[in-house]
């Protein structure tokens, strides 16, 4: 069904676009919004795949991802940002154009690397696995380049989005139990990190990791 595949491809393209936007976004509040958008696109993409293929368990996966990534995690993150009072902090990123170029190179690499996988998959959306891998690499790049603890974590969460997207593209998602397990780990992780941020702030008066890691070994 070509119409479904083009809708799915549209979502995949938007997914990648958001990954790029996150790479260049300096403000923490906007970064969280972008994360929520990425979650929404992911969940809609899964729902479209479910509709197109008649795979009912994918609806549950779409709902789970939707609730978790549009509502729960962004709400937790926003509360955290408010309580830490860092929502207006702007990160001093170095050279956004260079970052974008590295990002482009990663996308090309990901598309090439994923060709054998895409060729072997029999799903309707197998072409999107390249995009999934590209956004995984972009999230990794974001984690490397960012210096504040919170934006590294958002990069980490975006990485997980990319992985779920990859799972949907090649196999119509993992079994439901496993998806629940992954979701549980994500929520627990965000909670623990929340506690952790306060400890870091208490000690260092800052969430800037350069100040933490500059200490004597």
């Amino acid at each position, binding site marked *: 069904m070509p119409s479904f595949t083009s809708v799915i491809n549209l979502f995949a393209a938007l997914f990648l676009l958001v990954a790029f936007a996150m790479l260049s976004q300096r403000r923490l509040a906007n970064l969280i919004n972008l994360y929520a958008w990425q979650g929404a696109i992911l969940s809609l993409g899964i729902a479209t795949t479910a509709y197109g293929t008649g795979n009912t368990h994918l609806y549950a996966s779409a709902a789970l991802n939707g609730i978790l990534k549009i509502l729960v995690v962004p709400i937790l993150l926003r509360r955290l940002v408010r309580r830490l009072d860092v929502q207006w902090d702007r990160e001093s990123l170095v050279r956004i154009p260079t970052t974008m170029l590295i990002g482009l190179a990663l996308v090309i690499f990901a598309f090439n690397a994923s060709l*054998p*996988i895409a060729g*072997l*998959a*029999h799903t309707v959306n197998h072409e999107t696995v390249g995009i999934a891998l590209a956004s*995984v690499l972009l999230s*990794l790049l974001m*984690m490397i380049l960012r210096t504040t*603890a919170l934006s*590294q974590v958002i990069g*980490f969460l975006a*990485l*997980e989005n990319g*992985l779920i997207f*990859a*799972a949907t593209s*090649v*196999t119509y998602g*993992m*079994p439901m*139990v*496993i998806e629940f*397990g*992954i979701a*549980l*780990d994500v929520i*627990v*992780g965000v909670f*623990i*990190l929340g*506690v*952790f941020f306060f*400890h*870091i702030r*208490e*000690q*260092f008066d800052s969430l800037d*990791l350069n100040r*933490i*890691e500059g*200490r004597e070994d």
Partner: protein
Amino acid sequence: MMLLLIVIIPLLGAGFFGVFGHRQWAFSANIAFSAGTFLAACAMTVRVLHGGPILAFHQQFFIDPLNVFLVDLTAFVALTTSVFSRAYMRIEGHTGRLNPARLRVYHAMYQLFIFTMLLALTTNNIGVLWIAMEGATLSTALLVSLYRTPASLEAAWKYFILCGVGIALALFGTIMVYFAAHGVLGAYRALLWTHLDGVKDRLDPAIMTIAFVFLIVGYGTKVGLVPMHNWLPDAHAEGPTPISAVLSGLLLNVALYAIVRFKVLASGDTGAHWPGALMMGFGLASVLVAAFSLARQRDVKRLFSYSSIEHMGLATFAFGMGGPLATFAALLHMTVHSLTKSSVFFTSGHVAQKAGTQDMDRITGVMDRNPAMGWTLMLGSLAILGIPPFGIFASEFLILTAALRQDPWSVPFLILGLGVAFAAIFRKTQAMVFGATEIPRAPSPPSVFPSVLHLALVFGLGLYIPHALAVWYTEAARLAGP
């Protein structure tokens, strides 16, 4: 059902300590829960030895000779560490580094960590294996930063982020294995290891290659393989000592176990060589880098955590070589390393606690102050360096023998690594144990029982491996090393 008890006791323990973990008797209760887990593990071992592998709960749990020995080792080290932790953490409490809230977190997370380790070992589902490994990171991150010092927070952050990314890559690898298998097995069974093992010759080699590369980098981060090892020395040095002991003695083993399971799948029926070669490369790099880093260490716990990287590298290398002898040696090495290293961490933790510093230049004359502690530290260090009567000598000797036969080119590198490590650790421990001190004798000797027990076991294993144990290792080696 014994199998269920093994995972349920620590889980109940975690919930229990979430409420009562700050009480004075919580230390003893921690021992009781760990002892319960150990007894359940023993009971299950007897059943497996008599009745063969167990598959239970819709095939979600699976016990064979390979993982049953790791379950026993995990439960045993968890038990002795809880005994050690009672003595050690009480002293920490007196010095004001712990408050009730921290103590509650400590006990609850300790049991939760043991739960995730045992779940990872006993599950048959590679998805659950992943969830349990991620759970292990989550439960120990707050323990590494328990003292809230700047260094411990940095260590915990590094641990969280590096292992988080590592484990995310392992998830991609797991998805790829599922992808390779779900066409052959169908959605329900494609994550069950026993089924995957049955069809490993029919899994697409191209996808399994991609999957295994992601899995070895992912789980390899948790094993502490070079170059993904950066988190390990920090996490070991900054966390409370019982946590260093269980991280080194248990977590690294379980992560290596995961890699070995996937290596069996990736090698396929023909025993393809490249997954083994990849493991050998990572292993050898770890041995060499860790050995040369040892000489530069000043912190006693960092010293021994680099030694953990070295030993895990050696075990990974041996698993990579494959074949019955090398795999047997690797399993033995995992056992004796785990026992010896936790013993060394117990003693060096006590030593550092008494001296009030982890800086080796400022720790001297341990033997003068407390002969029992001096001897256990000295013998433990000699054991970890592979001095003959101890078990590590036996396993390292077997690994070198296997390497001489199968991959002679690697022997000079291994000897170099072991030699450099020997020089570094021996020089530093010797200076700590002997040498003059002005500090008077310690009035109350801390608990050395767990360290001595571990060393005695390692000593025994070096002299004589009981027949039942040898049969069991051979059986496990057959499963792990095609």
